[in-house]
């Protein structure tokens, strides 16, 4: 007996809506993903305040200093003293003066004499860092010739 082939038995799924959705998702993740090279350090747990708003005009030149504690996996402080995080290197706050002078030299080499005066020193300090040490760091920065300062805080404060 001869069996006739049934050509129309294969049902083709319409892929168009799925592809549309997938591209929508890709577009969403591409927009949300932050590729910007921020100088933020995850070890610093910033204080939160509702009034802290990002500057309307992004600063052209800034020097970000991350100050925080070295903590273990449980979040306990390994050392009671805070450090300035400089890449993989951790420098005690009061020993940071020479590094600031170096930053000034780099700024002058890159943008000419007096460039450091237009540079804002942005301080990202952990909530538990003693205020006195932040002031000491500002003093060291002033000695190195920097004049503009800003404090960073998270702007999404939980109520209560």
């Amino acid at each position: 007996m001869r069996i006739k082939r049934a050509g129309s038995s294969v049902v083709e799924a319409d892929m168009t809506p799925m592809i549309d959705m997938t591209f929508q998702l890709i577009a969403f993740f591409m927009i949300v993903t932050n590729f910007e090279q921020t100088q933020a350090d995850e070890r610093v747990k910033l204080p939160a305040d509702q009034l802290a708003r990002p500057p309307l005009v992004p600063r052209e030149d800034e020097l970000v200093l991350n100050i925080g504690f070295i903590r273990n996996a449980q979040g306990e402080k390994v050392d009671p003293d805070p450090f300035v995080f400089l890449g993989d290197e951790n420098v005690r706050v009061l020993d940071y003066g020479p590094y600031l002078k170096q930053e000034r030299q780099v700024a002058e080499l890159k943008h000419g004499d007096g460039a450091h005066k237009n540079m804002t020193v942005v301080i990202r300090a952990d909530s538990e860092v003693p205020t006195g040490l932040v002031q000491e760091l500002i003093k060291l920065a002033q000695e190195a010739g920097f004049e503009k300062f800003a404090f960073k805080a998270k702007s999404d404060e939980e109520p209560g």
Partner: protein
Amino acid sequence: MKIRRGSGEESGKVDIQMAPMIDVVFQLLIFFMLTLKIVAPEGDFNINMPIGSAAAASDEPPPLDIKVRLLANPDGTLGQVVFGNRPLGNDVPACFDRLNLEIVGLVGSGGGFADDMSVEIDADYNLHYAYTIKAISACTGRIDPVTQQPVRYIEKIKLAPPRRPGEE
């Protein structure tokens, strides 16, 4: 005349291979999903830090200085907020709300922006930085409860020289 479809015409239809495209698209999707990191937005406060006595050389009259003293407990928590000579307590966040009200009283009930006023925050050496930020925020302005937009009072905030332990 009836035209019969020949087998040659059927083979002329090109089928797009969707499988590789879908593979790549899913790869991209997984990449973006894994690299997604939601970072909390950060804002900042500008701080004026006059160097030594250089500010006194200007002909302009010096701005009216409001002094806010922040006392710390030995463990670095807030001991007392003192506005001028008046203690405002240490019950966070109510004490900073009181400080904010005092500033509003000075600036004017109209919520005006005071350009000729500056606040000097004098904090104890070991006071946690978070309280200093709260004090700076309370002096700078407030969030309007109706519009949820920030209302600025004083922009000129400075820090007093550090009070090193044993120097007081």
